[in-house]
């Protein structure tokens, strides 16, 4: 069943058109991540769903009910904010129960719900503290708890982890994932951190300037980006791009290299014309094994960045900056010669005009 459905949503701030005829539908229990660069309209979309912004046009359905004009508290949603937005003068318990008290729930019921949420989130020992006395992660949990007690159908998260340091972020990411597995609610999660997006999402919607660029599972987005923007956006370090000339016979010409694209899955068969040839740094094969691949060039390591588990190598191929990501134990130093191999099966090729995948 569809849990949230957005139809032809328009949102303007004055004369600025932030969301443009946006359509999106989210299945019950699905974990959807909205990913996109800063300012692309992710928070705006989330606020529209929550009812915190009045839409300019279009409709929003939650669980089949048209809630376009409903009050935020009547939409069956809970929301977790980037700054947590905890009420600083109330205890954790006060924070959790404030909304319930206001809905005039009977006291025992409130107690019970708070207790259950606290148990799920393991914040029982913190119930009498004020938010000021909590660590970042604990605050985050309380913020989630506030949505949890209200027994909502849909959870909305607006960059809930971006104020935290890397370590905590990784831990809480897992916790949110666990929570989703446990509760099975629909969750819509905004982030601009692609690691979060990739690890958490059932499906990812990549947004740009108020439009959804691609809506698909993480795997698909990573391996078969729908256009150059998505390809460039996803992956760190970013995908390498060469300008090339594709031919109908399934080959491509890059600078003075001719490459056979055997194994590449064209959308509609081989094309003709100028294209971008994209290749991910982590799919590069180094050393003798490279010679087996259709595309194999020699290069010189420019900068080497050992990162423990991986090593990044910066080099230049055909005059273009080229990034390689390889094993952490690879012993390469700046200035070393490299043999670089690429397999067309892992490549992504985009039309230079439309920037769409071919």
């Amino acid at each position, binding site marked *: 069943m569809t849990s949230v459905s957005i139809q032809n949503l328009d949102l303007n701030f004055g004369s600025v058109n932030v969301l443009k005829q946006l359509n999106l539908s989210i299945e019950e229990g699905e974990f959807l991540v909205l990913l996109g660069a800063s300012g692309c309209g992710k928070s705006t979309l989330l*606020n529209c769903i*929550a*009812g*915190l912004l009045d839409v300019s046009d279009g409709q929003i359905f939650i669980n089949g009910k048209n809630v376009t004009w409903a*009050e*935020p*508290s*009547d939409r069956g*949603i*809970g*929301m977790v*904010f*980037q*700054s*947590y*937005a*905890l*009420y*600083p*003068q*109330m205890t954790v318990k006060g924070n959790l129960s*404030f*909304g319930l008290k*206001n*809905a005039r729930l009977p006291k025992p019921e409130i107690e019970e719900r708070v207790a259950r949420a606290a148990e799920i989130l393991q914040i029982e020992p913190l119930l009498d503290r004020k938010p000021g006395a909590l660590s970042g992660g604990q605050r985050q949990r309380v913020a989630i708890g*506030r949505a949890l007690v*209200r027994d909502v159908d849909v959870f909305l998260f607006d960059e809930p982890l971006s104020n935290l340091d890397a370590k905590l972020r990784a831990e809480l990411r897992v916790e949110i994932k666990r929570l989703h597995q446990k509760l099975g609610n629909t969750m819509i999660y905004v982030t601009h951190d692609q690691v979060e997006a990739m690890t958490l999402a059932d499906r990812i919607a990549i947004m740009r300037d108020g439009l959804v660029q691609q809506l698909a599972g993480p795997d698909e987005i990573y391996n078969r980006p729908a256009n150059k923007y998505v390809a460039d956006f996803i992956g760190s370090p970013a995908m390498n791009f060469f300008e090339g000339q594709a031919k109908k016979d399934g080959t491509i010409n890059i600078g003075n290299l001719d490459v056979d694209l055997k194994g590449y899955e064209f959308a509609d068969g081989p094309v003709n014309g100028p294209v971008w040839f994209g290749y991910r740094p982590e799919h590069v094969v180094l050393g003798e094994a490279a010679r087996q691949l259709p595309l194999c060039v020699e290069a010189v390591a420019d900068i080497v960045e050992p990162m423990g588990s991986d090593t990044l190598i910066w080099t230049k191929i055909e005059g273009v900056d080229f990034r390689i990501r390889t094993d952490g134990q690879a012993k390469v130093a700046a200035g070393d010669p490299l043999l670089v191999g690429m397999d067309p099966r892992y490549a992504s090729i985009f039309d230079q005009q439309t920037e769409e995948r071919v």
Partner: protein
Amino acid sequence: MAGAKKPVRILRNLNAKVAALPMITTALVIFVGCTIWTIVHSFTNSRLLPKLEFVGFDQYERLWSTRRWLVSIENLAYFGIGSLVFSLVIGFLLAALLDQKIRFENTVRTIILYPFALSFIVTGLVWQWILNPEFGIQHIVRGFGFENFVFDPLYNPDIVIFGVLIAGLWQGTGFIMVIMLSGLRGIDGEIWKASRIDGIPKWKTYLFVVIPMMRPTFVTALVLISAGIIKVYDLVVAQTNGGPGIASEVPAKYVYDSMFRSQNLGQGFAASTMMLLSVLVVLIPWAYLEFGGRKDGK
């Protein structure tokens, strides 16, 4: 090897110390020196000229048995509590009102703020006039046919201080409102979103969430208002000159009149020492709470 030696302490940041000299001088000479001078002389029987003929607590005994002083204190209490409560409440309400994304915000804000540009002398005069029963509000309302309407606060000893309060609030609430407004605007917008999602009505959000969060703003406003209250003088002089009778006297005026009109400096100094003492009584616990308490908390 210039850097090797540890420099003489006093010479470090010499520039800063020199630059702070005016402040240091003012603090020491004016605020400490003059205060002490005043306190010392409050134990003398100085009349027109300061003399060091000590008379112990005579001046204080006299002070506290003087009806006018007692009235002044009482008035200050009414006026003080009134302006604290009303300034804060009205200032906040107006700020909250202006925060509702209304049209003409700038115009309204300017209208509310402009009295702050006027002196107490001007304020006092205008309100003296508006409140004059002969041709002010009372006159107008009676003109509408309410023959028995009575509104003459400046001529009724029981409520005259509230007449002064009306004028004082008119002059000062605008400034408090601006402070409150900037406090309100400083609150994280996500708090509002969170409370809307929790389904909390607006007024409850203000009451239980926003106001507690605006503590620093309220403290600032409180400090500014109280600094003004204790000094209130011009307003009373211009509006009622302490009358009718002595019904609207205030301590600052008592001090001034004792020193210059009655030519009893000692009495004036004793009264000002009492004023200082009351300032300390308010300030010290506050400073302790604000600064001392924080250390314990951590």
